[in-house]
């Protein structure tokens, strides 16, 4: 390892595509100890590191990378955990190419330091050895209720618990973790790892009550009477449908249903687990974001023969991460771009059998800077499909908005909050997807961190 750093990242060992499409085991296997040190040594230890500004929770990246280069893995994780309570998760699912690594100086000439992969390694290393629980501040006698146990809620909870406050998380589902457990598939984020990081949050003293639907079992107004502050982190869990004819035929799933059945309910282990899922031979996934890629790759692992992504723009406009698109392609997923479904057609038993589509061309750029798709006249054609997954996005869950008078809601249906998570109601804070619409795990955690500080200030007055 000389002075001149290699232009390329250490490659990530992965399961071979032919093998991995037959199991739900993790695709990326993680660096070995030698690789991780070589990768860390590529870092230039910049005096003004660009990388840090790209991390929504502000991890001291050069400091932890330096520890790794010195083979001090315990030191590295200690640096990370000052800012990030869920590093094994972020090291796997952060779109780091748009965050920390985007600002790494090495990225100008070659590939940036593999910051996410390094983070993953030391988090896994710590988990194998047994996690240490940090010291907590003295008990404060203040009580905070957190609604939703996704990354936003877990972050607020952990930070406030460390500051000595009494924290209870209320979660509607039977398992905590939000999208981390119900959405992101096992082969990208093993649930055992999510479980271990949640266990860490519990060891900080956080109580998690599952099966409590706030707005139904208990209302926000009732919580206000009992707690000094409330944080709402209920995410964007309401599925969009296309509202085209035939969409309620059998065999048509929202991506949420498809992923909840598979991940949360473990339908891929049916009948050992009770919840079924039905995947035919030809699966069409409508949409081209990360959720669509996840759905397509799940469908393949559930035994589909042909899986295709149906997307109305071209490949360039696909919102999914480049890495996910590459993984999907390696696994044999086909892409039907510039194609828009207009009707779903069923067989005599009411089961979907065809997607009627039109071909599209790209027109002028729209507000988002992407070129607008326009249908080509007379281009109607049919695609055979016996299973369809509609993965065209999610909206904020409206339950709390509907049951809480006085909470300001935006036109998009998100809860209005300032950058520190303060909502229009005294003592109520919010953050994560419920305030921004679908974003990323680490952005939800960043929002959680800022809200935790604001809550701490508010209740310490």
């Amino acid at each position, binding site marked *: 390892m000389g002075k001149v750093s290699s232009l390329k990242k250490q490659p990530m060992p992965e399961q071979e595509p032919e093998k991995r499409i037959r199991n739900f085991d993790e695709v990326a296997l993680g660096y070995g100890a030698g690789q991780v040190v070589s990768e860390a040594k590529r870092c230039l230890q910049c005096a003004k590191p660009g990388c840090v500004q790209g991390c929504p929770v502000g991890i001291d990246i050069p400091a932890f990378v330096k520890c790794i280069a010195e083979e001090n893995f315990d030191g590295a994780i200690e640096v990370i955990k000052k800012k990030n309570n869920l590093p094994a998760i972020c090291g796997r699912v952060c779109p780091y190419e748009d965050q920390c690594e985007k600002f790494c100086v090495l990225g100008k000439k070659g590939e940036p330091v593999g910051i996410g992969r390094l983070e993953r390694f030391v988090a896994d290393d710590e988990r194998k050895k047994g996690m240490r629980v940090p010291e907590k501040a003295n008990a404060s006698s203040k009580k905070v209720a957190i609604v939703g146990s996704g990354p936003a809620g877990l972050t607020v909870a952990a930070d406030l618990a460390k500051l000595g406050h009494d924290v209870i998380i209320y979660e509607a589902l039977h398992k905590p973790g939000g999208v981390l457990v119900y959405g992101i598939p096992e082969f990208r984020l093993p649930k055992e790892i999510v479980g271990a990081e949640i266990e860490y949050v519990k060891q900080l003293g956080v109580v998690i009550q599952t099966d*409590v639907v706030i707005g139904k079992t208990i209302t926000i107004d009732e919580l206000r009477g009992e707690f000094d502050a409330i944080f709402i982190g209920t995410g964007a869990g309401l599925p969009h449908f296309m509202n085209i004819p035939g969409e309620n035929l059998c065999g048509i799933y929202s991506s949420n249903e498809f992923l*909840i059945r598979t991940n949360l309910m473990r339908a891929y282990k049916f009948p050992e687990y009770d919840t079924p899922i039905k995947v035919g031979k030809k699966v069409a996934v409508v949409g081209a974001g990360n959720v669509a890629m996840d759905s397509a790759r799940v469908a393949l692992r559930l035994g589909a023969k042909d899986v295709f992504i149906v997307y109305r723009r071209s490949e360039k406009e696909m919102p999914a991460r480049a890495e996910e698109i590459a993984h999907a392609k390696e696994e044999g997923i086909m892409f039907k771009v510039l194609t828009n479904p207009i009707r779903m057609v069923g067989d005599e038993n009411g089961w979907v059998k065809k997607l009627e589509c039109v071909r599209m061309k790209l027109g002028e750029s729209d507000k988002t800077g992407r070129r607008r798709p326009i249908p080509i006249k007379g281009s109607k054609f049919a695609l055979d499909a016996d299973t369809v997954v509609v993965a065209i996005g999610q909206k904020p*869950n409206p339950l709390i908005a509907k049951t809480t008078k006085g909470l300001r809601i935006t036109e998009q249906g998100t809860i209005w909050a300032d950058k520190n998570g303060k909502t229009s109601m005294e003592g109520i804070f919010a953050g994560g997807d419920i305030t921004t619409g679908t974003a990323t795990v680490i952005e939800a955690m960043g929002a959680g961190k800022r809200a935790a500080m604001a809550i701490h200030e508010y209740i310490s007055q």
Partner: protein
Amino acid sequence: MCRIVAKKELAPTVKSLTIDAPLIAKKARPGQFIIIRIDEKGERIPLTIADLDVLQGTITTIFLEVGKTTKHLGSLNDGDVLADLAGPLGKPTEIKKYGKVICVGGGVGVAPLYLEAKALKDAGNKVISIIGARTKELLILEKEMRRISDELYITTDDGSRGHHGFVTDVLQGLITKQKIDMVLAIGPTVMMKAVAKMTKNYNIKTIVSLNPIMVDGTGMCGTCRVTVGGETKFTCVDGPEFDAHLVDFEELMNRQRTYLEEEKVALERWERCHH
């Protein structure tokens, strides 16, 4: 974890479980439901809250053993625990004074009907009830329904008790004879469909409680979607009760059949292990 505090057998395949759930008992209103999961490997299924006791902090649910999960549930006893119980979910029934109402219950649908009929009675309505079952052993809550109804009619498909035939036969007779302000029908989807068709001809406001397949029960998955008045609705949050004349029953029945093969596999597997 929720403890079962009492179990009753109402008919050979119809059981009632009373479960410790103080938060839910405090909140629940007629027409709402719960989602339960028996154990770590179990599925989430919806069941209507058939009765509740705020002081004891318990709720009661009555169910028909039809497949793996309900049979498994029926094999549990007092003192056993369920892994999960969430609720109360869905919108409560709109209880107000309509005037003269007919409450139609088919099979285990009488269970959810009971609380609603009682609330309608308490709100000052004249309540005429029709309850039906395949055969007399499967008739449930007759005494309870009689107590809260101004008139009660019974039907069985095999004629073993009451009128020999369907609830709709009796309904037809009643609505041709007098002015009825509202009909509430809960039972198998085919029954609700038949009731809807009949009352539509007479232009009588009719409410049904739909039972599509559900997973989360909180509006996240869309499994429970039904077409009502040409629009897609999520039964778990927009319902479960809807205007019967607007519901696309064909689509609902179709979607209910999605997992017939898998349900058979699950049931056979369970019975192999438990008999």
